[in-house]
């Protein structure tokens, strides 16, 4: 116990000595948590559009009006020809062209049928799909208004209609930040914890100080605990600061029991740091440890469920996501913070993450022996 205490004192002194590091460990997550969640917004507003109106009729004007007053579209350009509009798209000044052909109004009234054309810059498939469907909805809306104008609608509905009502639970205002903040917080805690531990043992190897530790009577588990506990504490501090910011800046307070998050975080950090230490025992130089961490972190983060839901992924990627501790923490964090899930709801995840914790740390201890 005393040995461990001395080891911990040494580790803390080493960490605290490096002022720049300490500042960054706490400042970087704070700044990023304040800034980054605001960036994530799939809600499309102000889609820049260009109009090519060959008809110049009352109806074409009405249709254009409908577009500009919808709140989704911003008329950035009116072109005489389709070709001109295309140049505007090439220059990125518009993402959508709506072309209204000559005779639009006349054809609609006389021939019962008319046409419009929507052209979208589809490099970003998802965004363009959305903006086209908004545009289409506006045109269809306009269409039914025209119909009402010309057809006497019967009072009773002659056709069976299935009414769909939607309720959005746990985030009724559909605020994207409620979704992003807990996820980004998990990533930040993960980055800090993992990067610091991954490099730690290697540094001692490179500096040669590990030789001294190896010849001393320190036991392996004491050594690993001495490395783990300081970063475990730092991880929890970063997490707590993060909760403070979530509350102050975003007004997010966990719907569930906050202690439950700490319980899960406690086990999660042990797992994550164990994995970091494992990388550390495996690498030969700090540089190597960094590159390996970079690789692992990228995969963890991308497959963590923050940028795309895991259910959407193909089988092999879902298997990787199941092997990714980050994805469990993100899931549990959202469950407790947004849905107010309780202990029994997260028990399954807690068991899985405990297995990770035991597995990684056992491997780290075993592998440390080999490198001595």
């Amino acid at each position, binding site marked *: 116990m005393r040995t461990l205490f001395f080891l911990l004192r040494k580790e803390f002194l080493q960490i605290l000595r490096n002022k720049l590091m300490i500042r*960054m460990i706490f400042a970087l997550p704070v700044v990023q948590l304040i800034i980054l969640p605001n960036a994530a917004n799939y809600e499309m507003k102000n889609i820049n559009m260009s109009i090519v109106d060959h008809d110049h009729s009352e109806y074409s004007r009405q249709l254009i009006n409908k577009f500009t007053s919808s709140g989704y579209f911003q008329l950035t350009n009116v072109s005489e020809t389709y070709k001109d509009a295309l140049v505007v798209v090439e220059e990125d000044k518009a993402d959508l062209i709506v072309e209204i052909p000559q005779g639009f109004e006349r054809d609609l009234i006389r021939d019962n049928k008319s046409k419009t054309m929507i052209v979208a810059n589809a490099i970003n498939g998802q965004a363009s799909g959305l903006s086209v469907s908004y545009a289409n909805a506006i045109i269809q809306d306009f269409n039914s208004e025209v119909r009402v104008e010309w057809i006497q609608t019967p009072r009773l509905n002659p056709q069976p209609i299935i009414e769909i009502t939607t309720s959005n639970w746990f985030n009724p205002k559909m605020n994207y930040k409620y979704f992003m903040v807990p996820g980004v917080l998990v990533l930040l805690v993960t980055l800090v914890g993992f990067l610091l531990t991954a490099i730690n043992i290697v540094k001692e190897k490179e500096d040669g100080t590990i030789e001294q530790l190896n010849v001393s009577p320190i036991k392996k588990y004491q050594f690993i605990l001495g490395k783990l506990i300081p970063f475990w504490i730092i991880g929890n501090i970063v997490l707590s600061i993060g909760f403070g910011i979530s509350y102050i800046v975003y007004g997010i307070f966990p719907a569930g029991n906050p202690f439950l998050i700490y319980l899960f975080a406690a086990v999660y950090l042990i797992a994550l740091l164990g994995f970091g230490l494992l990388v550390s025992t495996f690498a030969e130089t700090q540089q190597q440890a960094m590159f390996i961490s970079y690789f692992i972190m990228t995969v963890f983060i991308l497959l963590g469920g923050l940028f795309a839901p895991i259910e959407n992924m193909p089988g092999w990627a879902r298997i990787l996501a199941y092997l990714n501790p980050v994805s469990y923490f993100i899931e549990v964090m959202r469950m407790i913070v947004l849905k107010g899930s309780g202990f029994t709801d997260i028990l399954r995840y807690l068991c899985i993450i405990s297995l990770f914790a035991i597995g990684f740390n056992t491997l780290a201890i075993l592998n440390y022996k080999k490198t001595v």
Partner: protein
Amino acid sequence: MKQLLTFVKKEFHHILRDKRSMLVLLGLPIVQLLIFGFAITTETRNCNIAILDNSKDEATQNIITRIESSTYFDIERTLSSNDQIEKTFKTGRIKLAIVFQSNFQNDLLHTNKAQIQIITDASDPNQATTLTNYVSAIVREYQQELNQNKDLPYTINTEIRMLYNPQLKGEYSSVPGVMGMILLLISAMMTSISIVKEKEIGTMEVLLVSPMKPSIVIASKVIPYFIVSLINVITILLISNFVFGIPIQGSFLLLGFITVIYIICALSLGILISTVTSSQQAAMIISLMGLMLPVVMLSGYAFPIANMPLILQIISNVIPAKWYIIMVKDVMIKGIGLFEIWQELLIIIGMTTFFLGLSIKRFKVRLQ
């Protein structure tokens, strides 16, 4: 010149000796591109849902079968009462619940109106909206089949054309994004760490008192990583062409030119980072922790910049990857020329000059 060459050779040996790092540096772009191309899809499939059917008649059965047979949904469980809904949501197993009111078919046939309620887990608003749309589309399709008489009068038909990417493939936006991110992170990280390493071990002092100019010392450290980055670009382009089928529409030379400029920009950012820290640990924290998330989230490839609040749109301007991604999209996918991208190119060149200028200034200060 000869000195430089000898030095570059020495650095190369250092890098090549470390097989594990090499594997990461050259393998990462491949892995990342494959993850982005295949795993991070915007398509929804296999989403777990629950159904509460209070009516249990032919019509509801019909709709349920349609939902089940779509690729979007897997019915995780069938509920028998309202209070099970919230419980099931809280276990995190379902993202959506569909509730059919009782007497569904009866109402539909007799009053011509029946109700379906969709309840979503809106903790992910984006997914909630998408899933609602899918269910609505399936229900609407069913309804349309009930109403066989179509062909309404006064119809505006819309013709839709998707430019540059008619199949709406996700890779068209992810390939430029991955290029921007990988080149920046790897180049900045590698350079900063390898320069700082010399400082930490103390060999930098030796090098600087030697008759060689500091610029040659730095250049010899940077050139090998420049070459590694070039190899990465070629790998990425080969994969994007042969695996994802994205052709290079514009000039290959121009694409190469802007890429070289961008890599130099990223390397000079790495040099700048190395002048402000003295330990590899700190260099890593800055280059990984400080760059990774901002580059992913603010460069415009994970989330559209136009949707961001104004202040973030302004901040995104200082991320070099943003400008590079715009240029890659323009040249590679739209196939337009230098004349249309000169502004972006100038910004990148300006940033490079700024990073280098600042580095030189800080470097001198350190030597005094």
